[in-house]
């Protein structure tokens, strides 16, 4: 191998390569043998499987050699516990997403190879978001992911609402990433390098309230907070979530958020965290943003009647909780964020999957009324939905509680008592609107009797998420240890 491309580089890159390759494969296959959707699904799954295998090897390597990290391409990408943990999350999300999409796209009548390709390419981007340690890499990775999502959101091209969502998402996304990269340019200006380590050094070298640093912080955080849909940069989220195909919404709400969060943490906290040194500058900003996010997310969700939109707002408030973990900033906090992402993946995707199950020909199935009497029509789905909602509200013994538990603990440890009180109180508010859904499922009478659109994939994914949501709630030990090992270096 040339010194261009060492074996290490290769080893580190395997997952990304797999994703890119299989992405192209789906495209080609769809082009050569059209209308063989089953195979498309298989190829996509295979791609994910290989990726998983690659990740597994890297995990094994790290644990066997005991290295904290493995960096390649002279340091633009680094595999460490953090990156791996988040990549596992992305993978799970993508897996579930692909499984549920099959039937759903059939129903929507927009079933094309590009869809799977985009999923895989987005994965590829996320990989670098979690693993990148270079401004350029991160930026390109982010854009890659973002582009894929713009397209997927607008994938139902016949749907006005889908177009609109895509358009809005793209405009605002591009706008925000403009600011992000502006901030990056300033960072580069400070460090004369794009490596995060160098940047970190340069920032640390300047005193805290240096205007240039602040300029960087302000502009960068615009882009970052936009991606995790934090107030006041959240407004794309409800529209995009509502307009997008539900499977994409689920994926967007989980994977994109997780990836952006990883990105955010790379920049703000996790080693080498370029802006970690400027904590005292951005912590107050983040606190304000977090409070605003919790408030807006929870309050606005209260009188939504469209379940997708309701969940969109709720996911905004969850972003607020994750931010709180970041604000606390100690180990517990970061572990908390990781655990939160973990449980959030399952419970949120689960909730959206039930919505998907309700989507049938001629039935949108997104409205509260469509949930009416679900408990009679299909008690299992109702029960699962209840489970997911309880978890989202953070009621033990469900996974959601564990996540919130860490956040609260971190806040108490770092003495943010007021924030803690606020956070728990908002848990109450959240319960209120989640139980609007519960109420219409269990108390109200069914309006229409059409059987749900369920497929093996959906049932599998749903069952798995439900099971995990419960298991993590009752016996979180292994998962906590996973988070522990992956984050502590």
């Amino acid at each position, binding site marked *: 191998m040339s010194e261009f491309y060492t074996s290490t580089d290769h080893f580190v890159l395997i997952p990304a390569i797999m994703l890119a390759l299989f992405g192209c494969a789906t495209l080609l296959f769809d082009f050569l043998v059209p209308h063989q959707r089953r195979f498309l699904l298989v190829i996509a799954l295979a791609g994910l499987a290989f990726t998983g295998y690659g990740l597994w090897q890297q995990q094994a390597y790290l644990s066997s050699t005991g290295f904290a990290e493995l960096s390649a391409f002279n340091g633009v990408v680094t595999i460490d516990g953090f990156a791996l943990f988040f990549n596992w999350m992305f993978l799970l999300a993508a897996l579930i997403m692909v499984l549920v999409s099959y039937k759903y796209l059939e129903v929507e009548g927009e079933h094309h190879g590009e869809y799977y390709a985009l999923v895989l390419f987005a994965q590829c981007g996320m990989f670098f978001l979690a693993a990148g340690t270079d401004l350029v890499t991160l930026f390109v990775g982010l854009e890659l992911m973002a582009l894929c999502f713009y397209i997927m959101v607008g994938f139902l091209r016949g749907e006005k609402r889908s177009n609109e969502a895509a358009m809005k998402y793209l405009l605002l996304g591009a*706008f925000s990433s403009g600011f992000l990269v502006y901030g990056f340019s300033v960072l580069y200006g400070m460090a004369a390098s794009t490596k995060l380590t160098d940047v970190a050094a340069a920032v640390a070298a300047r005193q805290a309230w240096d205007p240039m640093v602040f300029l960087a912080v302000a502009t960068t955080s*615009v882009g970052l907070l936009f991606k995790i849909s934090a107030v006041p940069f959240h407004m794309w989220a409800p529209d995009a979530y509502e307009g997008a195909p539900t499977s994409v919404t689920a994926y967007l709400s989980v994977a994109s958020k997780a990836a952006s969060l990883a990105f955010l943490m790379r920049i703000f906290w996790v080693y080498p965290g370029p802006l970690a040194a400027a904590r005292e500058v951005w912590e107050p900003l983040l606190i304000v943003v977090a409070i605003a996010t919790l408030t807006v997310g929870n309050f606005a*969700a209260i009188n939504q009647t469209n379940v997708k939109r309701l969940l969109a707002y709720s996911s905004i408030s969850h972003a607020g909780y994750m931010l709180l973990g970041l604000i606390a900033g100690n180990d517990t906090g970061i572990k908390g964020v990781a655990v939160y992402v973990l449980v959030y993946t399952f419970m949120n995707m689960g909730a959206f999957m039930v919505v998907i199950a309700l989507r049938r020909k001629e039935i949108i199935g997104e409205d509260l009324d469509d949930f009416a009497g679900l408990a009679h029509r299909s008690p299992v789905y109702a029960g699962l939905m209840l489970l997911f909602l309880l978890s989202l509200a953070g009621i033990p013994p469900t996974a959601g509680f564990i996540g919130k538990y860490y956040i609260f603990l971190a806040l108490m440890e770092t003495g943010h008592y007021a924030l803690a009180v606020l956070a728990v109180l908002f848990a109450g*508010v959240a319960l209120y609107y989640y139980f609007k859904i519960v109420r219409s499922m269990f108390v109200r009478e069914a309006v229409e009797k059409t059987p749900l659109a369920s497929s093996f994939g959906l049932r599998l994914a749903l069952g798995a998420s439900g099971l995990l949501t419960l298991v993590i709630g009752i016996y979180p030990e292994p998962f906590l240890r996973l988070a522990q090992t992956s984050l502590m270096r």
Partner: protein
Amino acid sequence: MNFLDLIWLIPLFPLAGAAAMLFLGRKLDPQPPSEVMLAPDLAAEHGGHPHGGHHHGGAGKFIVSLLCPGTVLLSLIFSIGAAWQLSQLPDRVHQVVKFTWLAGLPFQTASGEMARFTADWGFLLDPLSAVMILVVTGVGFLIHVYSIGYMAHDNGYYRFFGYLNLFVFFMLTLVLANNYPLLFVGWEGVGLCSYLLIGFYFHKKSAADAGKKAFIVNRVGDSAFILGMLLTFAVFGTGRFLDINAAIGAGQFHAEQGFGILTAIAILFFIGATGKSAQFPLYTWLPDAMEGPTPVSALIHAATMVTAGVYMVARSAPLFQLTPNAGMIVATVGAFTAILAASIALVQYDIKRVLAYSTVSQLGYMFLALGVGAYWVAVFHLFTHAFFKALLFLGSGSVIHAMSGEQDMRRMGGLKDKIPVTHWTMWVGSVAIAGIPGFAGFFSKDEILWQTWSAPGGSTLLWGVGIATAAMTAFYMWRLMNMTFYGRSRVAPEAEAHIHESPRTMTVPLVALAAGSVLVGWLGTPKVWNLTGIFHGFENWLAPVFAAAHESGEHAHHDASIEWLLMGLSVGLAVAGIALARWFYHVNPSIPDALEARFKPFHTVLSRKWYVDEIYDFLFVNGLSKGGGSAMASFDQRIVDGGVNGAGWLTRFSSRLSIWWDTWIIDGAVRFTAFTVKLLSYPMCLLQTGRVQTYALFMVAGILVFFGYYMAR
């Protein structure tokens, strides 16, 4: 057999009877407990009094009439046995503890050492309780027998007897208890039974209300009693009578001149007593209680239950010895109640109400005696009073029975020959209560007056009140006799038809009680008569109980002449009262009306019972709004509306207030929060205009804030 160790059985016999009635009663007496009625107007005529003819209904009923009085008889026998064996004991005290009933945990007494908060299921037999159980079982038995006839045609026959037995059980528990908490058990129990029995005709609204009133007024007294008990525990660390007496006897405590903690206990107990024994200000329930069947009035509201207060104070005699102030209060309240009630009784027309007020008045006498420290006399009067007042009530019952439920004396008269037995027995009773020498009432009442005069606690004023009351008593009793039995008949013709002497089951008890009313007095003849032995039996018998009381109570001996003088005076007044009554209502019936016309306002005040009910009405119920209207009616009306006697008005106001508070302030706060949240949520949604550039603008605004924060820093 050793009755002394079996005294714990005495209460159980009636309890067994009651249980049997509760579980088997409906089998034995299959007729419906009380027929269902929709038309309220039916209720009035269904006063529940049997109409003519008396044949026992069915074997079941017969068993009931055997069983229930039987159990009481059994208790009577055991009581007599126990009493006899007690008299053989040197110290005349016997205590039987079955088990620890209230087994509370350790606590710190006021003085700081640890004690246990416990109460035995234990019984104490001493001369005092011996007297009481004899009265309860004896009179109780007679009244049971009487009821067989009286209730013969009533529905819920078994229910009636069940309650009656239950009452006897609780009453016996009360008097036999060896500690305050257990006494309180009986105390509350009899209250309950009186509630049940007053409201026996529970389809009669007035009856039910009266029952409720009785229960709740008693509850007011009871709460004071509870506090008294708690304070006792705090001070003495125990609730056992003997232990407390011992502690006092051991001189750990000294007589209190001011208002110390002991006085507090004493007063609390007395307040409790005023509730149960219908003393001012809590006496108003007793007249209403006459809604119940007459035997109940006789047993509970004359002979036994109402005397529980007297018993309890007597039981606490050592305590009261140490608290002269409390004693003074007791005496004053007693005297005041006595004359107040007597004055009201002067003008009542309902035969039972006259007796009811007379009872209140007589109880006042007893408390007067207790107050001046003449405990044995009080108990003596209780003893005699039990006989003649029960007699009078039963007699009146018999009259009412004969008159088919008529209770207004203005529609009676000239019954003397129609119901001779009743007449003669009642004659004896009236003489006795009026205080004619040789009859029971004379001895006890006269002794009370003498003690009031002579005892250190007493005073001329109290004596004056007492003797005035005596005169009134004589007057209203003979007013009753005259209006009922003598003169020309004012009976409504249709009732005239079937006036009849009561069945033997009713007359026999009358006779027995009449005999008692003559004889029992001789157990306590005045000292100046210089009779000995049995004629001072009562005082000697009780001596050990009130030993403590007596040393201090032993006062400088006045010369006999004064005692003779006073005695003569009281007798004279009694005779005068009788004569006056005869003159007014027999010789020359026009006078009362003339007088009434002359002293209209005064008469009204009396007949309105000094407006006490109205005053309560005003104070508690809601007099502020409607004052007028028929007193009792409006009173009950308010009670029912207000929910509770006493705090009715206050209650309604405050609970309205609290409901308002609930809905508007507390819930209001919550709803307000919810509302604001919802309210806030709208603008937050409205921000989401759907215009992509608005969103961008918000982002820019965010940046503005960021930089602003930097500059503002």
